[in-house]
């Protein structure tokens, strides 16, 4: 009887556990040679520069591949950076000027590295400001932001800063459509969205020699949300493709209301056609206020100019500029392959990836193979433009890059993986998990006509347990994969700076020998430079005091200053007299409400200081410059307002 009981109990337990075996998930095994593939020996250089957007920090960072080492955690662009005085020094403040005044922060999502003939020339890196719409240009010989242009009539500059194959234009498509025009036409009820809101697309021309930007024209597109974009290249050069969502034109609870249509659009823009119309004088100048800020390498200072008008083109009247390609479910990324023939739309809610053919698109336009129109702009027939669909690729496709060997790699946010597929046959070839929930992915040269299909980096949105935890806020993480073989292989996890969205990488050889090492003093045209120790002086101009200060290892001149009064505005104009690589000097003074300065060799930078109390205040060099760095210091004496202590300055004198 007892055996029976145990048998019964055993059988019950066995039945209960039979369903209890957990199926094995896909495990990513690291093979033994992964470490050697990312190992860059001490003193050796990485193969690629990776310029990475900083997302919500508004900056860029510079990383080496394949090591994942960070060379510049923060290259300041749209946000102030007290570490080197960006946005705090008098010279850099104008760079962050806008039509709204000084804006100290933004959200930088995407990078575009300049190209010639659809190949990276890596002269400049462009970045977008998402919040207060702007585009910045970074000079890759100095790794300094040298130009920022504001985009008027835009809200949420997300579909930006993508470029044409010879960097003729950098584009800025508005994410939020907004009412534009004069005060009366902008002060409208939000529920008149469909009638009064505009989705402007800006084409910013880039001077081919110097990089200077100008807003060439704006297209008044329908009030959709413009998400991302890619230029056509090679055979499709002359066209630009913008992904759109919210073609439902909802203005509230977009999570639901902008996800209702089975298809939104990829908007194809024939910008060569737009240029023709402009030549014929078909553009219309409209009032629009925006700031244009430029850095001058010779004066070491920025100027900000407020501009008043832009050239506007109305594609409802000017035919053949805009065509719409239906694309399933709120496409996020739209990417063109290295040949320029294929356009990949990643519908973030779609169960397939459609691949469109540029040749078929031209045919459909010629045959007027339209299935409808939006405000007079033709909607092409989906089937007529389609090359094919990738079946069951994964969940939540976002972005696609290419390896130059006929393969595409798409990131999947929801299913947290990268999927490799063949562009021609549309067959899925391989998939690897990402840790976790990848957003953008990047292959060196991936968006150009000449990818270097050796590595792929996934920039992930969720880190969780990948690193030692640091409280509620964790480092955003990236993963490096070897894609040189048939199967993708995970090589490396590395934490990133800020919150990377897109990034681009290019061979280090393109720029590493072109780096500026210092600024020649004889070329320094800063009006308040002190180009030698004999120029060091202090001048009073009313309540403004200008201190022309020099720095050289390891002293400030002057380093004893008296005759300053409470209520003065004191300007330290610090010139670094060094003429050698890697010898910046820093400058900090007690109680400064600004920040510090980091002054590069040959450069002049200015820190404003408003003394608020009587006393003697120290200042010192913040960048360890020599064995006697700790001796590099000085004093400034502040007397009461109205005091008659004479203005006096000296260095090295003892009475």
């Amino acid at each position, binding site marked *: *009887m007892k055996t*029976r*009981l145990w048998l*019964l*109990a055993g059988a*019950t337990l066995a039945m*209960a556990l039979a*369903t*209890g*075996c*957990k*199926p094995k*998930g896909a495990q990513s095994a690291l093979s033994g040679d992964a470490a050697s593939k990312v190992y860059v020996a001490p003193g050796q250089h990485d193969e690629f520069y990776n310029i990475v957007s900083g997302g919500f920090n508004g900056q860029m960072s510079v990383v080496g591949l394949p090591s994942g080492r960070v060379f510049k955690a923060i290259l300041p662009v749209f946000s102030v950076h007290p570490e080197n005085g960006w946005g705090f020094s008098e010279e850099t403040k104008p760079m962050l000027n806008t039509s709204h005044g000084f804006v100290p922060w933004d959200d930088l999502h995407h990078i575009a590295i300049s190209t010639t003939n659809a190949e990276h020339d890596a002269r400049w890196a462009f970045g977008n400001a998402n919040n207060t719409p702007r585009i910045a240009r970074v000079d890759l010989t100095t790794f300094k932001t040298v130009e920022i242009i504001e985009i008027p009539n835009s809200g949420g500059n997300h579909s930006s800063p993508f470029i044409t194959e010879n960097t003729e234009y950098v584009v800025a498509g508005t994410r939020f459509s907004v009412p534009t025009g004069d005060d009366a036409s902008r002060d409208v009820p939000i529920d008149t969205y469909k009638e009064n809101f505009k989705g402007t697309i800006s084409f910013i021309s880039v001077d081919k020699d110097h990089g200077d930007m100008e807003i060439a024209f704006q297209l008044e597109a329908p009030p959709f949300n413009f998400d991302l974009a890619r230029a056509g290249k090679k055979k499709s050069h002359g066209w630009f493709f913008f992904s759109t969502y919210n073609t439902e034109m909802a203005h509230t609870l977009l*999570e*639901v209301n902008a*996800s*209702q249509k089975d298809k939104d659009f990829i908007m194809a823009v024939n910008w060569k056609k737009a240029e023709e119309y402009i030549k014929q004088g078909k553009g219309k100048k409209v009032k629009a206020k925006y700031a244009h800020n430029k850095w001058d390498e010779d004066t070491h200072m920025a100027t900000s100019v407020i501009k008043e008008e832009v050239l506007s083109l109305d594609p409802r009247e000017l035919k053949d500029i805009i065509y719409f390609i239906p694309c399933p479910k709120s496409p996020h990324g739209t990417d063109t392959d290295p040949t320029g023939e294929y356009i990949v739309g990643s519908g973030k*809610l779609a*169960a397939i990836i459609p691949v469109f053919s540029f040749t078929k698109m031209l045919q459909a336009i010629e045959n007027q193979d339209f299935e409808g129109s939006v405000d007079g702009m033709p909607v092409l027939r989906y089937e007529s433009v389609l090359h094919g669909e990738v079946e069951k690729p994964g*969940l*939540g496709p976002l972005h696609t890059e290419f390896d130059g060997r006929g393969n595409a790699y798409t990131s999947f946010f*929801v*299913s*947290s*993986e990268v999927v490799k597929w063949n562009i021609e046959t549309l067959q899925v070839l391989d998939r690897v*998990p*990402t*840790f*976790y*929930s990848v957003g953008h992915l990047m292959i060196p040269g991936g968006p150009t006509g000449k990818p270097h299909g050796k590595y792929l980096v996934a920039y992930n949105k*969720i880190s*969780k*347990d990948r690193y030692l935890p640091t409280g509620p806020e964790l480092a955003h993480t990236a993963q490096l994969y070897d894609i040189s073989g048939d199967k993708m292989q995970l090589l490396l996890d590395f934490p990133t700076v800020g919150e990377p969205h897109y990034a681009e990488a290019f061979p280090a050889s393109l720029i590493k020998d072109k780096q500026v090492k210092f600024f020649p003093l004889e070329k320094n045209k800063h009006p308040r430079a002190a180009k030698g120790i004999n120029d060091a002086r202090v001048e009073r101009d009313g309540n403004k005091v200008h201190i022309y200060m020099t720095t050289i290892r390891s002293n400030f001149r002057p380093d004893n200053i008296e005759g300053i009064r409470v209520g003065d505005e004191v300007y330290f104009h610090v010139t670094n007299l060094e003429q050698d690589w890697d010898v910046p000097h820093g400058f900090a003074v007690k109680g400064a409400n600004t920040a510090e300065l980091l002054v590069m060799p040959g450069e002049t930078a200015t820190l404003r200081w408003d003394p608020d109390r009587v006393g003697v205040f120290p200042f010192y060099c913040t960048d360890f410059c020599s064995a006697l760095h700790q001796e590099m210091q000085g004093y400034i004496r502040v007397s009461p307002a109205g005091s008659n202590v004479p203005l006096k300055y000296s260095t090295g004198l003892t009475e």
Partner: protein
Amino acid sequence: MKNVSSVNRILIAVCSLLMISAYFTPLWQISLWAPQYPEGLNMKIWIDRLSGDVDIINGVNHYIGMKHIGVEMFPEFTYLIYVFGFIIGFGILAAIIGKRWSLYTFFSMIAILGLGVLVDMYLWGYDYGHNLDPTAAIKVPGMAYQPPLIGYKELLNFLAYSGPDTGGWILALVGTVLLYAVITEVMKSKKEKVLA
């Protein structure tokens, strides 16, 4: 009607008392794993409430139009405490009565309760997995998301598990022990019939 053996009588009493644990331990659990949730999301169902990562699961599932899981979704929570109370009370009574019919009735109650809970869970799971919001952001044609009744099932990027928790296992044990008691009594009664 014959008395049950004293061993079985004790078993009935113990089983009744064991069932009180249902008020203090979770009865059922549902777990989900996805690449970005390697540690899993876990929801526990108690006699009168839910606990665990219910909010996170709701957050994930609303994209595909699944209903918001909440206490109000389960009217069972309002009466299950009384059903258990009644059965426990009857079990103690059955031990005191000590007749075979009282054991059989007690066992039937538990068997019906167990079966009822499973049927109820299935019906809920069917509705939860099929009855989707037509305005959901992600709609995968032909896809339903009914969780497994017991065991594992892959649903898109998620692996789902459903099965008893501590209280559920105790109930299963109670059922098994009582089944043993019933079998021994039935066999005894057969012998008695043969002897008679």
